[in-house]
């Protein structure tokens, strides 16, 4: 392109300019060289034009040049430099105004052209740089293309090689297969050949053997002999028997006998095994039924109809199974029932386990949702509780051990008996438990009675108060009636005795004795219980008397405590019934009876224990 540009005539400036403009605009191949040339060509062009113009007009050819210019200008469309000819012959005058206008116009045009040229040049530069960039891109892309093309070729080459290899391998494989086939054929043929040869050889060998046999055996070989001092007896002591048909039959019999024995033995073993397996099966079935039956309500409530029906079947089966005879039946008849029922139960069990699993997983999920802190607190509380419980249990065990040791110490002093202690430990534990329960029962009864007693005592106190008041009023009345004091007093005593129903003892004393007797008998003279009783009794008015009376009663009761019967106390109660109904209710004979019997039971028990102990 540059070359092409250099050809342009510098004389034709406007043409070349337009041309260059045209080319730069149309041809999108900017090159620095070209743009420089354009610049170079444009600048000297203007200079040339200037020098051309300066040399254009001289003194001699003013007219000519003017006319030339006029011609030129008119051809370019400017107004003529000459004035309008007025006449035909008149010399055309140079119109200065027109010249100046033309000049001005030309200058304006020139400026415009220069501006345009500048614009074009900058555009040219821009386009040149664009061109550069694009060219760079182009080269780069070209390189890439080249590289990828090379790569592709490489890959294609590799592919081709691999395919080639593959083909080779296939060929090899085929060859190998053929080889294997061939070898197999060879082996097979060799094997047959070998077998054939073997057979042939063996036949020959057999023939030889036969021949040898004949040669060796038939020739009366003196050497083949047994030299024995004397024949010894048979191991079984019997004489050898002739071979006959009979012996043959006997041998057969014996053989079959042996076989039969073996089979019988094995059958027995199998039967035993079967029986054991059946037992296990039965047990398992029972356990399954027992395991599944408590759940039957739950699924039914859930309206799980299928499970319900199945379970009812199970129950039927259970009924069937209870019949022992079923197990003695041959397997074939039972098998179906058995397998079916087992299968059903197994299904139920499986579903149940699955349910449980689901539940567990749910619970776990819920558990995960909960906050950890709370659960930990709960956990700690729980552990504390459990620890406390453990402590209590330990204490309990300690006390029990102590009790046991005490008992043992009293029961047996010998060192030898200590050995036997272990054997009785369990028994004793059991007994201890029994005793403990009895004791608790007693305690309960005792407490109940104590309550009634306290109530009674309170009532009694109230009664006495009322009575005293009555008496006071009565005395007052008497006194007011002005009767003799002695007479009144004796009457008073009589009335009192009649009232209480006892002849010589004080009413109060009687009551306190009645109260005292029962606890005394229960506690069997143990001071702990009585003291408790006295302590627990509220400060009723009869307390002091009661305490005084206790010693006297204990003397009586210690003789035969256990012989106190409800009948003995009944009359007193009957007497008291008149005074207070509630009192008799509080000390029912039934409760007393229970109390006594409990007491006697403990006594006998302890007696028995002592007998048992060595």
């Amino acid at each position: 392109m540059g070359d092409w540009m250099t050809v342009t005539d510098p004389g034709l400036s406007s043409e070349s300019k337009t041309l260059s403009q045209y080319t730069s605009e149309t041809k999108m191949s900017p090159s620095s060289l070209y743009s420089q040339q354009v610049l170079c060509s444009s600048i000297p062009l203007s200079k040339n034009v200037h020098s051309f113009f300066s040399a254009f007009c001289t003194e001699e050819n003013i007219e000519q040049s003017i006319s030339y210019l006029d011609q030129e200008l008119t051809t370019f469309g400017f107004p003529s430099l000459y004035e309008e000819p007025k006449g035909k012959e008149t010399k055309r005058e140079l119109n200065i105004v027109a010249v100046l206008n033309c000049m001005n116009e030309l200058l304006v045009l020139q400026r415009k052209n220069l501006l345009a040229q500048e614009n074009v040049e900058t555009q040219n530069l821009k386009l040149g740089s664009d061109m550069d960039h694009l060219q760079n891109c182009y080269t780069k892309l070209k390189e890439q293309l080249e590289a990828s093309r090379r790569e592709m070729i490489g890959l294609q080459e590799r592919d081709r090689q691999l395919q080639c290899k593959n083909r080779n391998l296939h060929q090899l494989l085929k060859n190998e297969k053929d080889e294997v086939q061939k070898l197999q054929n060879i082996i097979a043929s060799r094997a047959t050949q070998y077998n054939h040869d073997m057979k042939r050889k063996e036949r020959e060998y057999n023939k030889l053997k036969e021949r040898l046999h004949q040669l060796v055996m038939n020739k009366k070989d003196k050497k083949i002999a047994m030299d024995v001092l004397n024949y010894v007896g048979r191991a079984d002591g019997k004489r050898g028997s002739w071979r006959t048909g009979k012996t043959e039959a006997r041998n057969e019999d014996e053989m079959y006998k042996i076989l039969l024995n073996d089979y019988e033995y094995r059958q027995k073993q199998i039967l035993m095994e079967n029986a054991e397996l059946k037992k296990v099966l039965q047990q398992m079935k029972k356990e399954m039924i027992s395991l599944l039956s408590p759940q039957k309500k739950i699924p039914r409530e859930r309206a799980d109809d299928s499970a319900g029906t199945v379970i009812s079947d199970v129950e039927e089966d259970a009924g069937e199974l209870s019949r022992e005879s079923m197990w003695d039946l041959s397997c074939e008849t039972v098998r179906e029932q058995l397998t079916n029922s087992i299968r059903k139960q197994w299904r139920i069990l499986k579903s149940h386990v699955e349910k449980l699993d689901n539940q567990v997983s749910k619970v776990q999920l819920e558990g995960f949702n909960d906050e950890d802190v709370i659960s930990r607190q709960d956990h700690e509380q729980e552990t504390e509780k459990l620890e406390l419980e453990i402590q209590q249990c330990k204490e309990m065990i300690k006390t029990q051990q102590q009790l046991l040791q005490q008992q043992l110490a009293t029961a047996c002093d010998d060192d030898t008996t200590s050995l036997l202690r272990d054997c009785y430990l369990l028994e004793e534990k059991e007994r201890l438990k029994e005793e403990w329960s009895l004791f608790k029962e007693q305690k309960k009864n005792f407490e109940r009675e104590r309550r009634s007693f306290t109530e009674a005592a309170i009532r009694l106190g109230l009664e006495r108060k009322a009575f005293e008041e009555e008496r006071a009023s009565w005395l007052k009345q008497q006194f007011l009636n002005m009767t003799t004091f002695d007479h009144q007093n004796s009457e008073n005593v009589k009335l009192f005795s009649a009232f209480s129903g006892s002849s010589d003892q004080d009413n109060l004393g009687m009551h306190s004795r009645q109260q005292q007797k029962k606890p005394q008998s229960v506690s069997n003279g143990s001071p702990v219980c009585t003291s408790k009783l006295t302590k627990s009794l509220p400060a009723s008015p009869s307390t002091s008397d009661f305490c005084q009376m206790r010693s006297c009663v204990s003397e009586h009761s210690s003789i035969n405590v256990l012989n106190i019967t409800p009948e003995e106390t009944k009359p007193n109660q009957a007497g008291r019934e008149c005074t207070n109904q509630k009192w008799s209710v509080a000390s029912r004979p039934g409760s007393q009876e229970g109390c006594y019997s409990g007491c006697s039971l403990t006594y006998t028990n302890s007696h028995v224990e002592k007998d048992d102990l060595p």
Partner: protein
Amino acid sequence: MNFSEVFRLSGLLCRFSPDGKYLASCVQYRLVVRDANSLQILQLYTCLDQIQHVEWSADSLFILCAMYKRGLVQVWSLEQPEWHCKIDEGSAGLVASCWSPDGRHILNTTEFHLRITVWSLCTKSVSYIKYPKACQQGITFTRDGRYMALAERRDCKDYVSVFVCSDWQLLRHFDTDTQDLAGVEWAPNGCVLAVWDTCLEYKVLLYSLDGRLLSAFCAYEWSLGVKSVAWSPSSQFLAVGSYDGKVRILNHVTWKMITELGHPAAISNPKIVVYKEAQKSPKLGLGHLPFPPPRATSESKYEIASVPASLQTLKPLTDRANPKIGVGMLAFSPDSYFLATRNDNVPNAVWVWDMQKLRLFVVLEQLSPVRSFQWDPQQPRLAICTGGSKVYLWSPAGCASVQVPGEGDFPVLSLCWHCSGDSLALLSKDHFCLCFLETGEGVGLAVRQRDGHT
């Protein structure tokens, strides 16, 4: 554990009598009978040539000495030392000789397996059995001594003949579906006969006493097959060791395989105890060296190897005949609880399998290849020898390596138990000695351990 003094021996010929009272040993052409406990010489018999085979009769009254080279068998009586019996097979030659179970007949196999001659010590009668097959184990007697099964070959086919031993009458004769029968073996209950084919084909056939085929077993094809076969004493299991290094256990009800016991060289199950014999490093004093210097063979002990353990394996030469691969030795313990095996390409190891759980129980790895092992006839106790001067004992309670005392080396090549399990004869090339094992506490302990374990 006590050891007797060392006695001379030749040809590893040393046998306890079946009743356990006597011990017969051979020195060249002399047969020495000793008391099994005191080891005092009770009888001395002189044979005509070097003895090659010795066998007690079942009632321990007679001893048979075979001199194959001369084709001679000499029988001696223990009760009557002056009684003698000589059987000459003459030009027919002799390759094998054995007692019949009644102890009154001798079965001699002639050269080339031409025939078996049955000589009676009671009568003059001589019976011949033709066509015996020359194979690994062609003759077998039932445990009760009533029947004998004999492998035969006629017209290129295998047959088995069952004889009644009391009068040598043929009871059954049937052909077996084998290519080349290799062995026959009665079950201990005497009702089932196991027959196996040559190593080229894996085939085990089971026949009833009356000749019916009960079952046929074939584990695989196109490879070397059965190498060893053993019945459990309870007749419940048949163990079949094969060239693929596995033992297959067949049951006696369906005759199907119960389990397959592989013998991998690497043991990874932590439940398995691996005992490895380790050389005890000799303790050398700081200042002095012992004089004379100690024997080359030093003491050894067992160490429990950490699992996973790997065992030394031998690369077998597969291009040679009889390659050293596969299970070649099998033995059940007398109570059928254990099975001891040896895989021939792991020659240093003895595998002990628990037959109740049907799994590997213990592996014992010795420093040198195991020569032979034998169970104590009374309890689960295994004695192993490796050709070194040590004897190894294993019981469920543990295992021990015992050095045979005495001057010079005593390479134990073979061993045999006394029927009571109290003593053990250790045989070397030229000598033998007895090893007395303590009874009572140790045994009780072992038994208790086993009971606790099972």
